[in-house]
């Protein structure tokens, strides 16, 4: 593989890994926030255990979201400096806003939530998880603004051989953004709903001790998956209008993009059907044991659909980095050597893949062990004597 192929593959693999964790973060954050709010109101052990169990899964998933995200951010500067050179004055703005007014706050509030158990006043502690949720959605918004600019460079004018920001509002009302953003957010809800369903079904099937907790979680998962799939399919079809208005031949002569699109839609309909059937029997689903293995089995499908969606969107953009303005090949950092890209490929893809596997092992272990062994929000041991 030459330098360009490696740089593209590096971005595609790290980006896909990043999104696998991000999409679950987006779906779980509001659910954990709702659970925590309920716990703050009722104060029952059941609500506490539920919040801590799903919160632990959320936080464990989040860890990989952060580390993969760090690599994503810096990759623009490392391997794609041609993009910054050509359009940095425009493209840099949403990325800067994402880090400053979204992720900076998200990370700070998440620390307050994780470590704030038994320390922050009850309602302030609840406020931190809502702030984490809001800032996570704000992050998604700015990243989608940046991505949409690559699909359709709205709001910029050519000035010599570079692009300049002309109309910031046009960046935010980009046709490539309007339906894609709600589509991605509902993909998050779909993933979150199916994961909550899957893990709950596992415990219900195994008849572990927390039947009530997981019955409730299963119902919450079913409702979330129902709302998520309805919206993801609705906004999915709604995307065709705006997308083809600015990228008319996006899916016509790009077989890989079309393949991704086709399978995503297939999975979308399947998931929608599953969620619809389950919502009809939501009252009995916790007791119908034959359903539970099936629910566990379909848990990975929305993740697959989400990655296929990105393949459709990004492969459909090729060979352009910025649609009909800048080619991917011309965005590559000039003078990037085979040795350099091989080094970073091995470092980023190797390390992040290993960590992603480790994280999924850990998440499935947390699910298997259940709410009895949750570190998040554990009562602190009595303070030891001050020795250091």
């Amino acid at each position, binding site marked *: 593989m030459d330098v360009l192929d490696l740089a593209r593959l590096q971005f595609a693999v790290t980006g896909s890994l990043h999104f696998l964790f991000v999409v679950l973060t987006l779906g779980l954050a509001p659910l954990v926030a709702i659970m925590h709010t309920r716990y703050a109101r009722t104060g029952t052990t059941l609500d506490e255990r539920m919040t801590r169990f799903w919160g632990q899964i959320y936080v464990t998933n989040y*860890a990989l979201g952060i580390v993969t995200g760090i690599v994503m951010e810096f990759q623009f500067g490392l391997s794609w*400096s041609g993009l910054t050179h050509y359009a940095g*004055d425009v493209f*840099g703005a949403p990325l800067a806003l994402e880090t400053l007014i979204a992720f900076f706050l998200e*990370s*700070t509030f998440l*620390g307050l939530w994780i470590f704030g158990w038994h320390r922050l006043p009850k309602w302030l502690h609840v406020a931190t998880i809502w702030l984490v949720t809001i800032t996570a959605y704000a992050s998604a918004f700015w990243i989608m603004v940046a991505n949409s600019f690559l699909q359709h460079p709205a709001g910029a004018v050519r000035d010599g051989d570079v692009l300049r*920001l002309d109309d910031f509002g046009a960046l935010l009302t980009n046709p490539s953004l309007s339906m894609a953003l709600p589509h991605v957010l509902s993909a998050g809800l779909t993933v979150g709903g199916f994961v909550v369903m899957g893990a709950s079904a596992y415990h219900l099937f195994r008849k572990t001790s927390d039947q009530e907790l997981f019955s409730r979680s299963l119902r919450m998962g079913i409702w979330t998956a129902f709302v998520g799939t309805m919206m993801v399919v609705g906004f999915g079809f709604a995307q065709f209008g705006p997308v083809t208005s600015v990228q008319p031949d996006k899916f016509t002569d790009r077989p890989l993009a079309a393949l991704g699109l086709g399978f995503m839609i297939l999975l979308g309909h399947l998931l929608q059907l599953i969620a619809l059937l389950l919502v009809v029997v939501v009252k009995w689903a916790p007791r119908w044991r034959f359903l539970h293995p099936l629910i566990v089995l379909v848990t990975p499908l929305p993740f697959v659909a989400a990655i296929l969606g990105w393949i459709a969107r990004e492969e459909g953009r090729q060979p352009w980095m910025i649609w009909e303005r800048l080619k991917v090949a011309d965005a590559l950092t000039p003078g*990037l050597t085979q040795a350099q890209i091989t080094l970073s490929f091995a470092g980023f893809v190797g390390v992040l893949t290993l960590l992603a596997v480790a994280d999924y092992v850990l998440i499935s272990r947390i699910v298997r062990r259940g709410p009895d062994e949750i570190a998040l929000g554990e009562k602190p041991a009595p303070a030891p004597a001050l020795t250091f």
Partner: protein
Amino acid sequence: MEILWFGALALLVAGYFALEGFDLGVGLLLPVTADRDRAIGAVGPFVLANEVWLIAAAGVLFGAFPACEYALSANYTAVVLLLVSWVVRDAGLWFRRRLFTRAFWEWLITLGSLGVCLAWGLLLAGLAGFSFPFGLLYGLLIAALFVMHGRRFLDWRLTGVGTPLVTGALAAVPALVPLAGMAGAVIGNAAPSATLTVLTFMVLPFVPVMAGAQIWVWKAFGKGPVPAYF
């Protein structure tokens, strides 16, 4: 406005060195620390709020000084080392109590912390046009300052003795010196004023929130029992 944004960049980088400096220092100290649970517990609640200063600094670089981004690709190896080490350090914190043995992840925390310090030495020296060996030496100097800072932080947090303020200011010096030297070049390469105006209007209302959130972390976790999540 260019000067304002350069100020923001310098503040974020200096803040990163002063804050993340003690996390990395404690990471470097782990092999000689008896009670590692308490040492990691002391820095734990601060790590997420500290490391994000560098992510924000990179955001300012991309948004306000995109033409300076070549600084990253021009120091490719150093930046890759920085990122991989950072990722490994973070993974050590998240997984230490949960996968394999604690010792394995503790070594990775120390190695990752060392890698970050060396990478900073190489990167900052590279920007100023110095040679590779000089960069390594500069990295070791940074590591030494961070160790001092980490030590002060643990004293202050675990026994209530002293303050990490002085070592924090010292820890920021290795970043501020090269930044000051490059100030003219960076400011001269700022994004056009249309971009800077938008950024300023969007970010300004959030500055009090960002400052408030950071202060809240210090108020909440500066005292009391050491939490045991990491």
